[in-house]
């Protein structure tokens, strides 16, 4: 099938303050192919894409583009304050006779278009009011509608639900049939093998392999990415979770009747020490809200949170002091402090503990930072590096470290492995396991069903901001969860 190349890259090098993100990379994309771009966190995938699209100028090398490129970037890159329709059509709005933007037509076309992506939100409301996954779909629709010869997708499914992933893959398929070339970046192996023709593996900024994907066994692909031998990797399964944990008897966290209309409505969750409770549900089912409600970041209409039987005042500071920690879903706006160094980001929440009379001990800081950089294998040139310069996955580890060094009793993890490569993902999962074993109460929110099924001891399924069911033990199967979640899909079908 490969015909003439639409993108040709030869010997491209790109260096950021001290980090060689791309090192003499060759890369060719042919017309009509779906090309997987894989590699560990920080391997240089996003950087390569930004070089391709002209956002970054390479330090050296040659790039030949042979057509229009349209891109969905890793972090949703839309304008939250503008309306959904405005975002969708920014730069190519329908005009009326005298050349002014025809807003009515724009909104109508936007609503029409989004319906084919399964989104029924009000297109005239600000984009920021949509759930993250919906925003991702809007970005997808925008990129696909741009009439491009090449569509680049940088981890498009990382915030999508199974149902939406299907929609997305259908779209990819249609694009493929229309002869459009696609670069597809993902850490999810299943997807890659389902849709991609060819693969390029980056490691430490170098292209270590390019070739057809189907002929490459999964295990070998992983070994190429990690630079470790196949044997070494074979020890692990799909996830790195071990056996079920043996939880204590008395719950350490009891959340009762959490209500913040209209997003959540009377959610009850209890977690015992040493237990991992998963929250399952569709996009917008209120999982993030539940976590935020527990940590006190969401104004509540009703509800109480008890830690070890004592009510916690409704603010983040009090919750943190009571031992609750939350790893936020959106690390860019709710997690990292971009200007600060890795060290300062890690110790931030633990500062009061590391200081006397408000004066911080640098030695204690360095010790803690050192420990966590090693334990979580955070890839940094030095702890003084700015956290904004790290790859997404490494930023996520920094945030995990921030919470772990406060020595919490309850850890709320909202999509902790989103955008993390296979290696790091296994590490994080193993870590969650280990933490639970050490007696921590963990709440795990994940859009990956496998992760929930393997990782959680018990699953709370949310639907429309209310608990739709709890699954435990033998009920923890794909079918049961889907059935619990799917009720909504049925309802939807009925009402149509």
């Amino acid at each position: 099938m490969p015909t003439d190349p639409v993108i040709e890259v030869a010997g491209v090098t790109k260096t950021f303050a001290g980090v060689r993100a791309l090192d003499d990379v060759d890369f060719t994309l042919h017309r009509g192919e779906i090309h997987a771009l894989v590699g560990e966190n920080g391997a240089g995938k996003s950087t390569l894409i930004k070089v391709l699209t002209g956002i970054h100028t390479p330090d050296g090398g040659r790039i030949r583009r042979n057509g229009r490129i349209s891109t969905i970037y890793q972090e949703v890159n839309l304008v939250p304050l503008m309306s959904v329709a405005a975002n969708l059509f920014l730069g190519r709005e329908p005009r009326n006779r005298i050349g002014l933007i025809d807003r009515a037509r724009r909104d109508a076309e936007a609503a029409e278009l989004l319906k084919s992506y399964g989104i029924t939100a009000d297109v005239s409301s600000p984009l920021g009011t949509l759930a993250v996954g919906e925003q991702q779909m809007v970005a997808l629709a925008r990129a696909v509608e741009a009439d491009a010869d090449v569509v680049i997708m940088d981890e498009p499914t990382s915030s999508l639900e199974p149902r939406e992933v299907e929609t997305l893959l259908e779209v990819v398929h249609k694009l493929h049939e229309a002869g459009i070339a696609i670069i597809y970046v993902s850490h999810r192996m299943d997807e890659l093998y389902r849709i991609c023709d060819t693969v390029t593996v980056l490691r430490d900024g170098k292209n270590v392999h390019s070739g057809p994907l189907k002929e490459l066994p999964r295990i070998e692909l992983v070994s190429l990415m990690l630079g470790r031998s196949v044997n070494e990797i074979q020890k692990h399964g799909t996830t790195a979770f071990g056996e079920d944990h043996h939880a204590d008897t008395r719950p350490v966290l009891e959340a009762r009747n959490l209500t913040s209309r209209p997003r959540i409505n009377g959610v009850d969750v209890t977690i015992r020490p040493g237990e991992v409770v998963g929250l399952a549900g569709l996009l917008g089912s209120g999982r993030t809200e539940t976590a935020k409600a527990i940590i006190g970041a969401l104004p509540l209409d009703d509800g109480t949170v008890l830690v070890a039987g004592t009510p916690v005042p409704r603010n983040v500071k009090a919750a943190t002091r009571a031992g609750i920690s939350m790893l936020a879903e959106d690390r860019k706006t709710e997690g990292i402090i971009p200007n600060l160094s890795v060290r300062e980001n890690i110790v931030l929440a633990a500062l009061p503990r590391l200081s006397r009379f408000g004066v911080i001990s640098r030695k204690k800081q360095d010790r803690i930072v050192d420990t966590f950089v090693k334990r979580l294998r955070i890839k940094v040139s030095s702890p003084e590096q700015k956290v904004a310069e790290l790859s997404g996955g490494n930023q996520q580890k920094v945030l995990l470290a921030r919470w772990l060094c406060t020595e919490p009793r309850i850890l709320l993890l909202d999509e902790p492995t989103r955008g993390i490569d296979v290696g790091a993902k296994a590490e994080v999962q193993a870590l969650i396991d280990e933490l639970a074993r050490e007696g921590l109460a963990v709440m795990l929110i994940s859009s990956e069903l496998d992760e929930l099924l393997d990782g959680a001891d018990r699953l709370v399924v949310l639907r429309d901001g209310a608990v739709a069911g709890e699954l435990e033990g033998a009920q923890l199967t794909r079918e049961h969860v889907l059935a619990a979640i799917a009720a909504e899909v049925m309802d939807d079908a009925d009402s149509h």
Partner: protein
Amino acid sequence: MTLTATRTRWLQDNGVYVAVGALLLFNALFTANFMTLGNFTTQLVQAAPVLIVALGMALVIGTEGVDLSVGAVMALAAAIIPLYLGAGPVPAILMALVAGLAAGAFNGFLVARVGIQPIVATLALLVGGRGLALVIANGQLVPLHDPAFLALGTDDVLGIPISVLIAGLLALTIAGLTNRTTFGRQLVAVGGNRRAATLTGLPVNRVLVGVYAICGVLAAIAGVLATSRLAASDPADMGLLMELSAITAVVVGGTPLTGGKVRVLGTVMGVVLMQLVRATLIKHNLPDSIAQMIQAAIIVAAVYVARERR
């Protein structure tokens, strides 16, 4: 990393020191009677109140805010001094500082609790504060005669004028506060990403109110020192346009207006640079028109060098 990149980075971090050095060199060569102890003392004494205000401003800017009311707070402090000077300098100064604290805390309350954007929140006090000062003082300039109070502005310790000493000590304190304390690091985190800081459980509101309160107190201290030096309480003119001088000095010193970073030594150097620029322009007797245009050019040049690269 290439050599030019290293050099650019170095210049970006140290541009303000280079500029101060260059200006000193220029003056040493071309300005009569510049290299005298008396002259340096004069420059430092004149810079001291600006520096004190700029230190507070640097903290506020570090939280991604700005305080336009500092000049008005200086005027308030000035207006309060004569009311209590009868009871002695200490109560008078304390009352002035309390006023600064109250004004700052009020700003902080508006920003942190009510959620008003800093420029607008402090604009209200910029507009109303000086009026209030004039109301308190009945619109009058009051000459002051209390020798102990006036000594603040005229005396020195081991040859260092008291106001310069105070400014220096405050600079050290603020440097320690930002770099070495929990409060300082929380402040920078709040400025770097307020939502993340909130979700991390930092006492965001307390930090914000604290920062504006500190800024208010520092402005009041500057008002007290300037009043003592002038030997008169002059609420109509005290600290006029001080907010712009202070912001300029802070930014020229390399603290970005986008928050998340505070450079205390840079701020000191920014103040010194702007003071030297003013002194140079006056000493060379340039007309006001040229002087203003040169100041504009120097501000742009200094900030250009220190700007954050994309």
